[in-house]
């Protein structure tokens, strides 16, 4: 009984900021001058108004493009690499695996300055010559937003852990039947690691959706800015801040991932746990 009381109070502390966010988003702008819980009237049109005040819909679309792009690249590149490391007779596969594990521990903040320079010097993009000089490379482009943050070594490692537990006899049998190596990877082995694909999908979508620092560094126009960045810029305009609209925008930024989490909860929690305990 005591446990229930403690857990209920704890859950309320965790959830009340979100509840208050939604309630604020529904209040009229002149109702937020003093603290209240419930709105007097529910102003659902605030969400529409918020879209008009800031290009939130545009930001939302951009976040979606980035999340889908990063996730597609990650799923392709990391399953390929994970499968090769787990099941194909590569010389030095063990040291290659160690290489990926070391890289997955490099914090992003350490490399942010040189990564900016690498992305700026991608040859033949953004007015760059073949040596990567003279232009802006992938700065302020979809390429720059999507490619560098996709295919993280963590996902290669995660995919490898799932492929390694499949019996090699399956691949051998397919080989006897004359299936090519890529056919074995795509049609025999990968369908068996669907849980891994879902885990990678959920983690990468969440990571891409919530990213902030990298888009802040490399974007300079609203056309390709993601939602988190748009929200941060909007919230910095302290002079005549419209809290209901700002909270409507925040709800738009927060709720899709909360919904995704609730639906994919089991995978998500298993993924967190296996990444933490098996590794």
């Amino acid at each position, binding site marked *: 009984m005591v446990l229930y009381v403690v857990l209920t109070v704890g859950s309320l502390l965790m959830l009340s*900021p979100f509840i208050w966010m939604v309630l604020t988003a529904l209040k009229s702008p002149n109702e937020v001058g003093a603290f209240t819980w419930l709105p007097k009237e529910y102003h659902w049109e605030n969400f529409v108004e918020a879209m008009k005040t800031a290009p939130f819909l545009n930001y939302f679309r951009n976040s979606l493009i980035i999340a889908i792009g990063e996730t597609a690249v990650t799923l392709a590149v990391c399953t390929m690499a994970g*499968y090769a490391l787990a099941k194909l007779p590569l010389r030095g596969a063990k040291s290659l695996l160690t290489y990926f594990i070391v890289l997955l521990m490099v914090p992003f903040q350490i490399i942010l300055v040189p990564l900016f320079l690498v992305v700026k010097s991608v040859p033949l993009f953004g007015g760059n010559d073949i040596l990567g000089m003279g232009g802006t490379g992938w700065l302020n482009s979809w390429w720059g937003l999507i490619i560098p943050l996709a295919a993280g070594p963590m996902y290669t490692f995660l995919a490898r852990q799932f492929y390694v537990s499949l019996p090699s006899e399956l691949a051998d049998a397919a080989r006897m039947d004359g299936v090519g190596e890529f056919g074995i990877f795509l049609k025999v082995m990968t369908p068996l690691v669907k849980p891994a694909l879902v885990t990678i999908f959920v983690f990468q979508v969440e990571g891409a959706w919530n990213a902030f620092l990298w888009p802040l560094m490399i974007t300079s126009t609203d056309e390709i800015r993601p939602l988190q960045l748009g929200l941060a810029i909007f919230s910095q305009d302290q002079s005549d801040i419209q809290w209901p609209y700002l909270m409507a925008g925040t709800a738009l930024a927060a709720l899709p991932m909360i919904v995704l989490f609730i639906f994919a909860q089991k995978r998500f929690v298993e993924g967190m746990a296996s990444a933490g305990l098996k590794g």
Partner: protein
Amino acid sequence: MSNLATKAAPSRTGTATGHSKDGAATKGTRLVKRRSVTHKQVRAGWLLLTPALLHSTIFISVPTIAALFLSMTDYNFSGDWTWVGFDNFVELMGDQNFKTAFVNTVVYALVVVPISMGLALLIALGLNQKLRGMAFFRTAFYIPTVTATVAVATVWLWIYNPGAGLANGALSFFGFGPQPFLSSPDAALPSLMLVGIWQGLGAKMVIYLAALQGVSRELVEAADLDGANRWQVFKHVKWPALAPAQFFVLITSIVGTFQVYDLVYVMTKGGPGISTNVLVLDIYNDAFQGMRLGYASAETVIMILLISAFIIVGRKLQGADKSE
């Protein structure tokens, strides 16, 4: 990991001996065929691995090495640069912004990491019961973790609003006067820490919960039969089983708290004054406001050393706990 690699090796030699047991006449052709099959596998393997290898080399390895190199130069976007040795590091020692950021980041980690680890463990112990409604509580504690930090920070900016915010509303309900929170240099950093702890609980709790569910029921029941009380069961059965989870949670928490950025950017931008300046914010400002990329890289090198030092000391402390 290593045992999986060795498991794969014998199975391959197994098929090889299987082939050689066949008739002596076919042995030669079989071997050739097998070799070409393996050759195909090797070629496919490298083809499949190359994109990931190229990607991680270009976007992680090269930048990591470049950061070390840049830290010894005065590179500033302009193209020409000179080698300055340790000058950047010497200059950092006298840089008030950097010193404040360094101290704030260390204090932030020292407060947030132990408190959130302790709370997360308590919640996990509470949730590790076969009772109704636990799935709901688990979801509730986890939601802040899956929410974007920018969104979380924006909500808390509103909660800390001095006039109409939820925080002062709640304080006045319990009879306390209003607090300045983010607008006072003394209260701003603790206010940020509170949000950091609140948001980070879920991720740690889930890992502890998974580890607790791995503790064998028999062991706990045996201890119960021997008359051990709850505290003794926790100390002698559950706590040792939590060691791998503790290690993972400690490392990710330390690395995570040192990277604190989004929260500070949205809520205080390092202010009032420089009272909530943190390392990543300072690195960002030096690199992209001050255009001093070499100088900012020197800061990242110090940050790597600091994270490493924290992890080594943290491991030592956990080790000392175990030997008790």
